[in-house]
């Protein structure tokens, strides 16, 4: 099992979600996050006081998947979230040790 974390542009969330649903991905966790990479933040000016906000708003998607489905998921997210400009985000894949469905107690791939 793998744990896939993708940081994407917020407005790309729906496209990614639809693309993953058509792959048969049954669930995901989404959070609104802030961070920075190569993309710089913007400057805000309040009555002449300038604040450069170094953090850019992004959306973080987390998906747990079987080893077999993982390459396709990564490829799908990459295709759906891409705008070809700086700040499109990153995808990380981690090994996932265990998974349990709370309602039934099922474990492993069947819990996903």
């Amino acid at each position: 099992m793998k744990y896939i974390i993708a940081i994407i542009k917020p407005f790309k969330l729906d496209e990614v979600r639809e693309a993953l649903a058509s792959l048969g991905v049954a669930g995901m966790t989404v959070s609104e996050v802030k961070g920075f990479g190569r993309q710089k933040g913007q400057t805000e000016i309040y009555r002449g006081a300038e604040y450069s906000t170094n953090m850019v708003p992004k959306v973080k998607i987390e998906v747990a998947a079987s080893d077999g489905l993982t390459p396709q998921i990564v490829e799908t997210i990459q295709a759906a979230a891409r705008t070809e400009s700086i700040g499109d985000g990153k995808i990380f894949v981690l090994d996932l040790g265990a998974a349990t469905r709370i309602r039934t107690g099922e474990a492993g791939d069947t819990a996903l």
Partner: protein
Amino acid sequence: MVAHKDMKGFTHMKRMIATAGGMLGSMMLSTAAWAQEAAAAVAETATDAAATAAAVVTEGPIKGSDPAFADAMAGMVDKGDTTWIIVSSVLVLMMSIPALALFYGGLVRTKNMLSVLMQVFMIVSIAALVWVSWGYSLAFTSGNEYVGGLSKAFLQGVDATTLAATFSNNVYIPEYAFIMFQMTFACITPALIVGAFAERVKFTPLMIFTVLWLTLAYFPIAHMVWYWAGPDFLVDAPTDYGKLWGMGALDFAGGTVVHINAGIAGLVGCLIVGKRVGFGKEATPPHSLTMTMIGASLLWVGWFGFNAGSNLEANGLAALAGINTFVATAAAAVAWCIIEQIHHGKPSLLGAVTGAVAGLVAITPASGFAAPMTSILLGFVAAAVCYLFVAVVKNKLKYDDTLDVFGVHCIGGIVGAIGTGIVADPALGGQGFFDYTVFPAVPGTYDMAAQVITQIKAVAITLVWSGAVSALLFYGLKLTIGLRPTEESEREGLDLSDHGERAYNY
């Protein structure tokens, strides 16, 4: 029934020229006859008036306690005027709560929102009590040039039949209406100050400061600027007025008394309280410009009560003050955005509403004197000068006037006060001033240069008086019970450390 000679005064008023006969009946006709119009009209009006009320008096003001005057005096109070002053009082209260509280609150960080709302709300409440206890008496009874007496402390001698003068001969409003209207000014002025040291002052010392500052700075300045014997009584008591009124300073609705007074107190306060923890290093952007826009818009609405209400009568001059308040504000908002577009490349909402408030402040002393077109120019100038102080000078000098009380209220107030000397000139379509030393009052001869110098002197006296009193009080409190919360409390936010509540619980 005695006509109390208490009023907020200016040295002008045109339409009352029609009350040449000093007659009851003339009031109904008075709004139609303007000073510039032919003397014949005046004579005609006087004749009509005389016919109406000849049975009571034939010349001179209706005053005194002689029962023969009772009927005539009863007719000196107009229900329209009374209604307008009561409505204006409510509008000005709305300027403090919620308008000013939201305008300021939106500009601080989330953790200090509730503290600003609470400070403004409680200052209003405390100031109202202080006003009826000794404030009204110190401001609007005869004393010396600098402060009134205590003869009406706790409103003794005031009842539903006592009257306050307006700016017209033989036109009065109920004294309670006048007290209530003026009370709202005493409530908002100390509340304006808190913006200068928002996010870093303890609640209790601020409330003590409010009581003392009202007593030592606001009431004396209000007395100096607005107290005079009234149009029907100045003839008999030609030296019964406050110092700045006697100098001939023009302040229609409180440029010196409210804005310069509060603005300089704010600057002194922010210097003595000191900078916020992390000032210049941590970002302190406004937490809700939505709140700020709501607050600024309600300020604009309420300001019609502030300025047009200050006419004390519902007539053409009240309408003039209203339209001037409307267009000067619009002009300043537009000017501020254009300057931002040029300076930063983007017009901002905060800039628009800040410009609007600067325009409101600047038109305040001029609202009943200027013409609409000169009001627009005043709005443009106020926006440019205030922008300079808020966006350039403050950043250069690095004083932490959190919400720009000095840059907007004091500087805008000074622009307005000096500008009043220019726009009031009848040569520019202004209203000039009235000579109340004769009955009925006549238009005075306007000398723009001399008036501007008088305005500058009035500004200087207000700056020195309020600045000195504020410095004394802030230092006194700093050295005794302290003004600042601990650094830990300040970092946590005043909402929790001072009030044990949060503005928002999501």
